[in-house]
C-alpha cells in the first residue's frame, strides 16, 4: 500500500481510486500539472517557504492519504454486507444501581419501538448507549449486541459509519443550497453511484409525506417545517448509511407520520421513537418505558391499544382536514 504513492502517477492513482479527488480538494492540494508525477514527487515540489506559509504538514498529508484510501476501500466494501438484522439491549442498571426490569430486549429490522418516560428519565442515555455500542462500559452498564453478537468497534470511531441516525423536532437545514444541490452533496459524500436516480427517489418520497409539494429548485432553508421534516425523513431513509434511526418526536403539522414511519421501515431501518404523543407511541409495535435512568417496562402494543389508535387517527384526520380547510379560506361550521 505504502508504495502506491511513489509507484503510481497521480493520473493512475485517480483512475484506481477516484475518491482521492475529495482528499486533494479538501486539503487544498492543487495537483493540476502533476498528472504524470507520483504523489511523493508532488509533495516534494513544495518549497520550504510554501510549507511554512500555508501550514502544510507533508508527513501528515502523506499518512493521511494512505489512511483515507484504506478507509474508503473498507467503506465501499462494507456497502454490500452492512446488513443489520437485529439490535439487542442487555439489561444494565438504573440511576440507583438497581438492575433494570428486563433481561434482554431484541428489536428486529423493520420494527418500530417507541420510548416513553418523563423528561430527564434517561432517554438520551439509552440512545447514547446504542450509538456507542456500549459494552458494560457506560454509567448504565448496559450492553448492546448487533445480530446477537458484540459489534465491531468501528461503529464507535468511524466518521462514515455511525450506528444511529437522528431526526428531531429541533433540527433545521443550515446550508444555503437548493434541494437538488443539497441532495447531490449528500449523495456524493456517501459515494452513491446512481446519484440522479437517488435524488429523484428522495424528492418523490418527500413530496409523498408532505402536505405542501416542493421541487428540486426550492432553497432548503426556505422550506416550511413540514416540508423540511419530510425531506429529512426521506433523505435519512434513502441515503443515510446508519441502520438505526432515532426519532425525537415528529410534529403533527404538515406531514403524514404513518407514511413517514412506513418509508423508514421499508428501507430496512430499525426505528426508535422517543415521544410523548399517544398516536406515535401506539403506532410502534412495542414501547419501552424509562424510569429513573433504567428501562422499567417493555410493553407490546395490544389489539385494544391498536383500536384506540384507530380512533385517535380518525380524530387526527379531522383536525388535519380542518387545518387544510382553514388554509384555503373555508368557514368551519361543524366537526
Amino acid at each position, binding site marked *: 500500500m505504502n508504495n502506491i504513492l511513489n509507484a503510481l502517477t497521480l493520473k493512475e492513482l485517480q483512475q484506481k481510486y477516484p475518491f482521492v479527488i*475529495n*482528499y486533494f480538494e*479538501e*486539503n*487544498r492540494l492543487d495537483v493540476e500539472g502533476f498528472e504524470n508525477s507520483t504523489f511523493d514527487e508532488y509533495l516534494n515540489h513544495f518549497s520550504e517557504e510554501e510549507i*511554512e*506559509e500555508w*501550514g502544510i*504538514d507533508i508527513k*501528515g498529508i502523506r*499518512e*493521511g492519504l494512505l*489512511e*483515507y484510501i484504506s*478507509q474508503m476501500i473498507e467503506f465501499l466494501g462494507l456497502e454490500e454486507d452492512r446488513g443489520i438484522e437485529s439490535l439487542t439491549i442487555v439489561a444494565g442498571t438504573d440511576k440507583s444501581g438497581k438492575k433494570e426490569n428486563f433481561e434482554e430486549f431484541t428489536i428486529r429490522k423493520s420494527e418500530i419501538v417507541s420510548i416513553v418516560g418523563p423528561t430527564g428519565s434517561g432517554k*438520551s*442515555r439509552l*440512545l*447514547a448507549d446504542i*450509538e*456507542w455500542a456500549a459494552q458494560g*462500559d*457506560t*454509567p448504565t452498564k448496559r450492553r448492546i449486541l448487533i445480530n446477537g453478537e458484540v459489534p465491531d468497534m468501528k461503529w*464507535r*470511531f*468511524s*466518521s*462514515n459509519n*455511525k450506528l444511529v*441516525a*437522528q*431526526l*428531531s423536532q*429541533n*433540527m*433545521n*437545514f*443550515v*446550508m444555503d443550497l437548493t434541494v437538488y444541490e*443539497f*441532495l447531490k*452533496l*449528500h449523495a456524493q*459524500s*456517501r459515494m452513491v453511484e446512481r446519484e440522479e436516480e437517488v435524488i429523484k427517489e428522495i424528492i418523490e418520497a418527500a413530496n409523498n409525506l408532505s402536505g405542501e409539494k416542493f421541487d428540486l429548485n426550492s432553497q432548503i432553508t426556505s422550506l416550511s417545517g413540514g416540508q*423540511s421534516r419530510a425531506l*429529512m425523513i426521506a*433523505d*435519512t431513509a434513502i*441515503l*443515510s*448509511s*446508519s441502520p438505526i434511526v432515532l426519532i425525537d418526536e415528529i410534529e403533527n403539522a404538515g406531514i403524514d407520520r404513518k407514511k413517514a414511519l412506513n418509508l423508514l421501515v421499508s428501507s430496512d431501518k430499525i426505528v426508535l421513537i422517543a415521544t410523548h404523543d399517544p398516536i406515535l407511541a401506539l403506532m410502534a409495535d412495542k414501547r419501552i418505558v424509562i424510569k429513573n435512568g433504567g428501562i422499567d417496562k417493555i410493553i407490546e402494543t395490544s389489539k385494544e391499544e391498536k383500536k384506540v389508535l384507530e380512533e385517535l387517527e380518525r380524530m387526527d384526520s379531522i383536525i388535519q382536514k380542518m387545518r387544510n380547510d382553514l388554509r384555503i379560506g373555508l368557514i368551519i361550521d361543524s366537526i
Partner: protein
Amino acid sequence: MNLVTVSGPPSSGKTSVILKVIEAFKDRGLSVGVVKFDCLYTDDDLLYEKAGIPVKKGLSGSLCPDHYFVSNIEEVVKWGRKKNLDLLITESAGLCNRCSPYIRSIKSVCVIDNLSGINTPKKIGPMLKAADIVVITKGDIVSQAEREVFASRVNSVNPKAITLHINGLTGQGAFELSTLLYNEEEDIETVQGESLRFPMPSALCSYCLGETRIGEDYQMGNVRKIKLGDEYE
C-alpha cells in the same frame, strides 16, 4: 497527572464539552482541573468555578494566543501537579485557524461545530488536521444529512483522528469522550523539552511592534503583498 489540550474556533462548544466530560470523570472519583487560554476576554473560568473545578485563566492580550500558550504551558503543568490533579485540561480558542497548541506526545482534541459551514474543515489548519480526536458539536440542530456531510469533510482532512459527536447541552457522547482522555499508566511531570506538533508562523512586521499607520513607508520586516493580478499595468 494526565494532560489534554483542547482547542477549537470561538463558540464551537469547547467549554460545554469539557464541563460535561468532567462530570463523567467526577463519577469516577478523578480530580480534573482546567486552564483556559484566551486573547482579550473570557468568563468561562466562572463556569468552571461554579462547577467546583480548579481553574486558572490566561489572557494573551497583545500577543498571539498560541505563542502565549507555548510560553506558559510548562508553568501550567507545574500548577496542575501542585494541585494534585489526575487530569489537567488546557482549553484554547483557535483564533486565526493557522496554528494549533498541540504538543507531540500530549493528547489533543479539536472541537468544531456543525453550524460553522461545510467549508470550515478546509479552512482550519493544524488545529483540526493534527488533532488526535475531533469532537463535532451542535448536531442536535442540523439535519442528519448535514451532519453526515460535515463528518465526511472532517474525515477527509484528518482521516487518522477519532471523530465523536457530542451534544454539549445534554452531554450525550461526553462520557464516551472521557474514556479516551484518561490513561492510568500515564504520568506527566513536565513538558520541558517536548515539541509542538506544528511550527507557528514566523511573522514579525512593523505592525507586530505597534505600528498603526498605513502605507509602504511604514511597513518593515516580514511583509507580504496581496496578488491582485495587475502588478504590471
